[in-house]
Each structure stands twice: as structure tokens, then as C-alpha cells.
């Protein structure tokens, strides 16, 4: 029952966010769609033709009042139509997005997972050697790595491993000889191409996990049940097991924030490595002022993140018996 309510709230949230994007673009001075309409008329199209063309792109008649446009746009949205791209004329936005989304989902989830692993290992080390130089070094490295912008890391890695020492490719997600699918040459080529992007995700991501893990570990170490475990004379391995699980659990809620950051980072990372994911699509759309693609990307990343959060909440309730969903 809780789950259904959560999903309903999420759907409302997605609806609100997409409405905001709609009005944001339309109500700004210099509404791009009326600008486009007038440009087409100036180029010698009849008003009817121009209206038709703009309608195909944005899903609503350009000369109607904004509210009527909103209703028209919503009807199309419910039918899964997000309009067509301005730059790549005639290509539906949904097609562009669904071609790009898998790449981003795979790389972001690998990056999230690996940086999480590195972060918790370093965090536990730093917490268990709290008063030594080891912890101080790890903490400083973690917080500085967290503060350095991803695009700086991306450019630096690209320069080091592509220009100076030519070991990894500079762009694309797989070699031109490969056909995407479940075959070994393609997977190998894909793994080879994502080394640098993943490296960037991990370098940018592990710091915050490390700091969070350290603080929860220290907190759990001082808990009564840890004392009880030590007094009972349990093996070190057993104690570490208790410690690990109990301190990882609170980190689950941080997923909410980190997913947004990761997707935000993908804008910079993918445009630096020319990786065909959704971040790159968005960056290109933004620089070429391709509004339908922009709105689509924004809605879709938001929707993905909102649903990932519902999933995380659900998993959290399963993993931690103290919480009921």
C-alpha cells in the first residue's frame, strides 16, 4: 500500500516537473517557438505551413493561448510523443533519447557501484585508524577529490591517457568495426571505451562515499551492540561483519542525492569524451538550442531519478527491518 502511494506521489512529481519545463520555455521573453514560427513566415512560408511545421516539432499550435498549447502538449505527452528534434529534422525526440539512455544507465550504474565500493573500503580504513596520518591523508584526498569538478578530471584524464600516452580511445562507446549486441568483440570494445569515463565517475564520486562511510562507521563503533559483541568475545571477522552492514545501511539514503549528481556529471563527462549517452545529447541540445530534445532529456532524467529513489526506498525497507514501507 505504501509502495502504491509512493509511486503515485512520484507520478505527480514527474507531472509537476514536466509542466514547469513547459511553462519555463514558453513564458520566457523570446519564446523560441514563436521565434521559430515568425522566422519560417519570414522565409516565405504561408502562415498555415509554418504553423504545421512548428506543430510537428513542439506538439502544439504556436498561435494559440499558452493554456491551450499546454493541453495539446499534454495530450501528446500522454501518448508518448515528445515532439521532434529541431537540429536533426524529423527525428522524434523519444527515438533520440532511447538510443542514448542505455549507454548512460550502464556507465552511471557501474560508476556508482565501483565508487561506492572504493568509498566504503576507504571509509572503514579511515575510521579504524582514526588517530593516525592514514586517516588524515584519506580524508583530505577524499574531500579534495570530491571538490574538484568532473570536467577538470575528465579533461586531465583525456589528455594524460589519450594525448600524452596513447592507450585509451578519446571518443565513442565502441569501435566502428563492432555491431552492438551481446557478442564478445563488442563487449570488449565497449569495456575498452568506457575506461576513461568510468575513471572520471569514480574519481569524482568516491570522496563523498568515503566521508559518509567514515562518519557512520565511527557512529556504529560507539554503539552499545558493538561493545556487547566485543565483550562476548566474537571473532574479529564477525565483529567487522556487524560493523560493515550496520554502517552501510544509512548510506542508502544518500543514493537520492548521488544519482542526481551522477547524472549531472554525465553532462560534462559524456560531452568531453563524446560518449553517445543522454548527457551528451543534452549538452548538444543546449548548445544548439534544441528545445524539444532539452525538455525531453530533462523530463526523462528526472523521471529516472525519481523512480530510482522509489526503488531505493523500497530496497531500504527490505534490507532494514526497522523500517516499514
Amino acid at each position, binding site marked *: 500500500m505504501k509502495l502504491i502511494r509512493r509511486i503515485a506521489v512520484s507520478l505527480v512529481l514527474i507531472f509537476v516537473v514536466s509542466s514547469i519545463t513547459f511553462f519555463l520555455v514558453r513564458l520566457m521573453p523570446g519564446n523560441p517557438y514563436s521565434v521559430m514560427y515568425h522566422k519560417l513566415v519570414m522565409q516565405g512560408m504561408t502562415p498555415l505551413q509554418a504553423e504545421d511545421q512548428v506543430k510537428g516539432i513542439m506538439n502544439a499550435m504556436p498561435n494559440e493561448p499558452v493554456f491551450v498549447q499546454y493541453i495539446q502538449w499534454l495530450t501528446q505527452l500522454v501518448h508518448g510523443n515528445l515532439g521532434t528534434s529541431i537540429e536533426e529534422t524529423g527525428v522524434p525526440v523519444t527515438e533520440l533519447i532511447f538510443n542514448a539512455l542505455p549507454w548512460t544507465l550502464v556507465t552511471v550504474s557501474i560508476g556508482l557501484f565501483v565508487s561506492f565500493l572504493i568509498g566504503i573500503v576507504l571509509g572503514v580504513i579511515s575510521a579504524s585508524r582514526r588517530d593516525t596520518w592514514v586517516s588524515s591523508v584519506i580524508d*583530505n584526498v577524499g574531500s579534495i577529490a570530491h571538490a574538484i569538478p568532473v570536467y577538470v578530471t575528465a*579533461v586531465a584524464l583525456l589528455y594524460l591517457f589519450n594525448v600524452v600516452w596513447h592507450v585509451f580511445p578519446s571518443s565513442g562507446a565502441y569501435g566502428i568495426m563492432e555491431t552492438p549486441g551481446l557478442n564478445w568483440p563488442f563487449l570488449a570494445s565497449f569495456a575498452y571505451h568506457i575506461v576513461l569515463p568510468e575513471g572520471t565517475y569514480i574519481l569524482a564520486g568516491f570522496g563523498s562515499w568515503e566521508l559518509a562511510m567514515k562518519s557512520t562507521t565511527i557512529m556504529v563503533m560507539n554503539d552499545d551492540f558493538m561493545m556487547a559483541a566485543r565483550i562476548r568475545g566474537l571473532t574479529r571477522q564477525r565483529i567487522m561483519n556487524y560493523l560493515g552492514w550496520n554502517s552501510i545501511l544509512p548510506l542508502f539514503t544518500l543514493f537520492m542525492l548521488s544519482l*542526481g549528481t551522477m547524472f549531472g556529471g554525465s553532462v560534462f563527462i559524456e560531452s568531453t569524451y563524446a560518449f553517445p549517452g543522454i548527457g551528451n545529447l543534452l549538452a548538444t541540445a543546449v548548445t544548439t538550442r534544441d528545445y524539444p530534445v532539452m525538455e525531453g532529456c530533462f523530463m526523462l532524467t528526472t523521471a529516472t531519478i525519481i523512480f530510482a529513489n522509489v526503488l531505493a526506498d523500497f530496497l531500504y525497507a527490505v534490507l532494514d527491518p526497522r523500517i516499514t514501507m
Partner: protein
Amino acid sequence: MRTFWHILRKRKMRIVGVVLLLMFVFMAIFGPIIYPHQPAIHPNEIYLPPSWHHLLGTDYAGRNILPQIVLGARNVLFVAALAALFTVGIGTLIGLAAGYLGPIVDSILMRFTDMVLTIPSIVLILILAITIGMSNDVIMAGILSFAGWGGMARAIRSMVLSIRERSFVEVSQGLGMSRTYVIVKEILPNLLPYIVVHLMLALTGAVYGEVGLFFLGVVPFKADNWGVMLNFATGGSGAMYSTRSLMFLISPILAIVLLQTGIVLCTDVVNELVDPRLRNTVGGYQANGRRRQRRTSVGRISVGGRVRSSSN
């Protein structure tokens, strides 16, 4: 001043951080006095290596790189500082209102905060940046401040919720003090350490966002921004493809990295400076341990808040 020295001396890294940050602040304030003119174009001196005349070498148009970095500091730091102030201001206001003004205001504001928190902030900033336009620095700072206030508002709210139950607040409420008095005189001072520390963190976030927008080429290029330099270095000028132009690529990178490092290391100093409870410890490490723990307790409250919200 003496406490300041005392705090600094405890760890060497702190001195490094303060020196780095002061260096960039110095650049931002006195840069235009040291270099009153834009660096001139010399077509015959493209991509020179560092020398006494060009301390950081020259760029794709033969311009000296050092003045560009120095002049860039003003714009970057000004917008970032403004954005950080906005972020912290909005976060504190919303957090205080949600925590103190009762359950109805609380639930409205927190639903709104939750919504903002789930939206990927960089993506929202990108769209806002091109629809609103980045005509001046204040608008840019306003847009950038959209990124970070959500988490701050949540943390402030949970702290206010716990502080308002403490006896000193109840005493002043019982004495008939006005609501403003209680908020300003009783609650705000207790939040101050967190607010100031968060100001530093918001600063790193704002630098990230601002330079990033220029790097992507989303906002109209302005002369002398590190992001613009990085954009030209990776794109237009082809500096990426040759090791000869290393200096043009590495200068903005180093500037950003050093600035962020400086801010992060200073956060530690500021933290100890504003929170007297951290000062009376023997060694620096112990202070560090305590600091982390304090931050933990904040995290724990917010975790608890989430748990509660998902179980009712």
C-alpha cells in the same frame, strides 16, 4: 587573531589552504590593477613554453596566459561567492521556516524541497541558464544557487526541530519573547557554525557550476573566465591534440584545482574558528574526529526524518 594562529598551526595542510585561498582573493581584488589591459595578441608567439616574460607560456593567439588566469579569478570568485551566499540564505530561511512555523508550513516547504532535491541540479541549471539568459553576474549567481539549497534546508530544519525543544528556547518563549527574538537570538546562534561551514561547501559547488557552464559553452562567452579557457583548450584551439600547448590546457585546470583545494582545506579552519567546542582539544586529530561526529549527528537526524516520512 591568536586563536586563528593557534588553529592554523595545528596542521600544516591548513596553512596551505589559507595561503591558496588568499592568493586567489588577492588576484580577484588586485588583478585588474596589476594587469590593467587585456593581454595583447602576438601571432608570432603562439604556444610558447614558460619563460620569464611569459610565466605560464602563451595561448593559441600568442597571448600571455598568466594575466588571463589572474583576471579570471575576479569573475569566478565574485559569482561563486554571491551564489554561495544566495544558497545559504535560501537554505537557512526555508529551513528555519519549516522547522519553526508549525507542521503545515513544514510539510509544504519540505515537499517542495524534496522535489528540488530529486531534480538533477546541473541539468536544471543548464535549462534555466539558456531560457533566462546569463546577462549579468547576479542573475547567474541566482541560478547557480538553485543547486545546493535543498540539502541545507533539510539539515537546518532538523536542527531547528531539535533546538526548539531545548530548555533555553522554552524559557524565552515562556518569558513572552517575540518569535523574531527567539529565532534571531536563541536559535540562529546555535545554527551559525553549520551555516558558516556550509557557506564554504556551497562555494565549491558554485565554482563547479559556474566554470562548468562556461566550459560547456552554454552561456555567452566572456573574456577571462577559466571555463572559457578550458573550453577553447579542449575544443576550438586544438590544444588537446599536441603536447606543445600543454601550458594553455594545464593553467586553467591548475587554477580550478588549487582554488577548490584551498576552499576545502579552509573549511576545516573555519569550522574550528566558529565552533568553540572544537577548540579545547589537545591534538588536531581529536578535533577532527569530533568534527566528523558532529556532522554525523546532523546526518543522522536527516536520516531519521526520512525514515519517519516513509513510515507514516
